[in-house]
């Protein structure tokens, strides 16, 4: 296969870095990783052809350090840099620095990133292009008084959002006037910590909306297509948990309208490479522009399964100057795909991160299952970065089959050593509302308000027997020993009871 680039530097870590390395290898491109101190043995280092240390644990001094990353790229002679998602992926300064250094940044131009990076400027531009918006301010709030005035005008509930924000940080839903002041303060402090700017704006909240996003792909020759939507309504604290493609709520007609709007938006931003326009959709299939993510999305695999395309291959080809190898008419959605984001967090403790050493990981596979993982047995999940372990993705001929397969796969997935949110997916994937496709951004809180599934008495007895045998076989490496003072045997007065049922 013709080489597009000889070598690409992956400016990221975790599962996405591994996924990018795989794409490089599939295209005959050498992949160079960078790593911070605690990541010396991370999976993205193991899988790469080359790996370079770029600093200590603190992201600001490693994965967010443009200088060190460019230094590594120059040192190893990388012809391009792929930023993945998060970290520097939406940082115009990196894109610009790459350009200055004669290294291809695999993503849009600095100008496009800049534009979409500021919610307020993006809004002005998009409104010009005729993209629909939720009523609200397009500028940061100068005062609490102004906030009260606007909230009163739009009517409660209202939403507060960080201008520089993303991923739900610095975001607050305000239900009544009394909460407004404190929520604004909280949003500002969180925004300051997260983005170094406390600019926060306000808009009317669409209650129980769906969060639906549209994938677009644009080459550097003015061609742009949309690849269908992703339903991302199932969120916890504004963080996506489970996504599916297509959305149960989107008709072909709505898909076309959304897709064409997304292409409009991309063209208005002179956009190139892969991008995603996030929309808020109400129950009457109106949709409003939320933001544009100027990078590869975490949940891109579900679009790949339904379109049969490889978005990262296409990103690289576009960056190499190739034209899109297809037109809008060639894009056919087939079947249904679902993604579960598997995190090291404790569902029984408010999903608090659960770091630790992975002692075993039994990974599901088989029909319709794809696993994009960033861990391996023996790897120590630290506290320095996002606790995402892997993305479990299923494909099915229809939604029922996709659900059935990922439910089956979740059942096979065993991770020991850290706590995970796998049990959350078991709940979602058997929940009648989810099965009926009734998912909006309020879905999870409604699910949590339902009583959790009963503990399984029969299984608990099996677990007890297993624990006893495990102890008897002394597999505990001395951590457990048989009882020193055995309780008197019951065999003598053992009622020959029925076997367990």
């Amino acid at each position, binding site marked *: 296969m013709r080489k597009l680039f000889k070598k690409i530097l992956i400016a990221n870590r975790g599962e996405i870095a591994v996924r990018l390395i795989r794409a490089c290898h599939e295209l005959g491109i050498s992949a160079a990783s960078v790593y911070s101190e605690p990541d010396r043995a991370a999976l993205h280092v193991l899988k790469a052809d080359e790996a370079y240390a770029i600093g200590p644990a603190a992201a600001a001094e490693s994965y967010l350090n443009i200088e060190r990353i460019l230094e590594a790229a120059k040192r190893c002679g990388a012809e391009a840099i792929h930023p993945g998602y998060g970290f520097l992926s939406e940082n115009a300064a990196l894109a610009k620095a790459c350009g200055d250094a004669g290294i291809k940044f695999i993503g849009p131009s600095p100008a496009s990133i800049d534009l979409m990076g500021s919610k307020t400027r993006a809004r002005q531009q998009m409104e010009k292009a005729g993209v629909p918006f939720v009523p609200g301010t397009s500028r940061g709030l100068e005062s609490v008084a102004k906030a009260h005035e606007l909230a009163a005008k739009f009517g409660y509930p209202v939403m507060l959002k960080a201008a520089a924000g993303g991923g739900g940080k610095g975001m607050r839903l305000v239900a009544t006037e009394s909460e407004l002041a404190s929520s604004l303060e909280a949003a500002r402090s969180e925004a300051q910590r997260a983005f170094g700017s406390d600019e926060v704006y306000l808009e009317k909240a669409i209650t129980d909306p769906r969060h639906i996003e549209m994938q677009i792909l644009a080459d550097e020759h003015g061609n742009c297509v949309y690849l269908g939507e992703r339903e991302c309504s199932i969120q916890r604290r504004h963080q996506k948990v489970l996504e599916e493609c297509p959305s149960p709520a989107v008709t072909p007609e709505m898909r076309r309208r959304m897709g064409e709007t997304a292409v409009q938006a991309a063209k208005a931003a002179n956009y190139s490479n892969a991008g995603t326009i996030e929309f808020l959709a109400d129950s009457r299939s109106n949709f409003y522009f939320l933001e544009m993510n100027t990078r590869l999305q975490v949940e891109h695999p579900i679009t790949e399964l339904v379109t049969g395309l490889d978005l990262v291959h296409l990103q690289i080809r576009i960056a190499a100057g190739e034209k899109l190898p297809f037109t809008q008419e060639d894009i056919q959605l087939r079947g249904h795909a679902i993604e579960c984001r598997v995190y090291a967090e404790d569902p029984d403790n408010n999903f608090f991160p659960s770091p630790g050493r992975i002692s075993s990981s039994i990974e599901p596979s088989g029909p319709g299952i794809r696993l994009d993982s960033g861990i391996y047995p023996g790897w120590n999940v630290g506290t320095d970065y*996002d606790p995402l372990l892997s993305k479990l993705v299923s494909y099915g001929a229809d939604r029922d089959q996709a659900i059935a397969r990922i439910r089956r796969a979740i059942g096979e997935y065993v991770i020991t050593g850290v706590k995970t949110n796998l049990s959350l997916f078991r709940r979602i994937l058997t929940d009648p509302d989810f099965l009926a496709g009734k998912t909006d951004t309020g879905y999870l809180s409604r699910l949590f308000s339902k009583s959790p599934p009963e*503990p399984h008495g029969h299984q608990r007895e099996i677990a007890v027997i297993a624990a006893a045998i495990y102890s008897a076989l002394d597999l505990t490496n001395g951590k457990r020993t048989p009882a020193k003072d055995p309780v008197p045997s019951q065999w003598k007065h053992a009622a020959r009871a029925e*076997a367990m049922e």
Partner: protein
Amino acid sequence: MNTYEISVGGKTYKVELQPAATAHNPNAELKYRVLLDAREINVSCARTNEGSLSLIVNGESFDVHCKANAEAIQVYLRGATYECVVSDPRSLRTRKKIGLADSGEQKLTASMPGKVVRIISQVGDQIKAGQGILVIEAMKMQNEVRSPKDGQLKKLLVRQGANVIAGEVLAVIE
């Protein structure tokens, strides 16, 4: 004959094992006569991998994965995790540590390193179970530390902005 007292989810079982057949190779069958409280159960067992067992009970097959830590044996089974505390000389201390009883004083500890970014409740407040005490930021996420029980906030041992380490006591509820 091995005898154990095993507590899981607050319930305690008395378990006796009688090996009925032993293995001649790593994956071979081990048979046990098990007395669970008063009921006799015949169990077919095989070792699969380190810490993992296959159990067959009345035809039902269970793929079980065990991991021992200082407090208990964690048993992973059909997607559920069971914390099994096996009785031994250390068991009393152990049971206390994981606090099966929720009467009396209760310490709130940090389950991981992080930074205290907000204090929600003040010393002396009456607290309901599940009510937020303070907020810790770790792994780039804000996490509210909540009270496990109704009671009064006796002590608050950290200030806003403080860095805490895993296991550090943050507050005391009574």
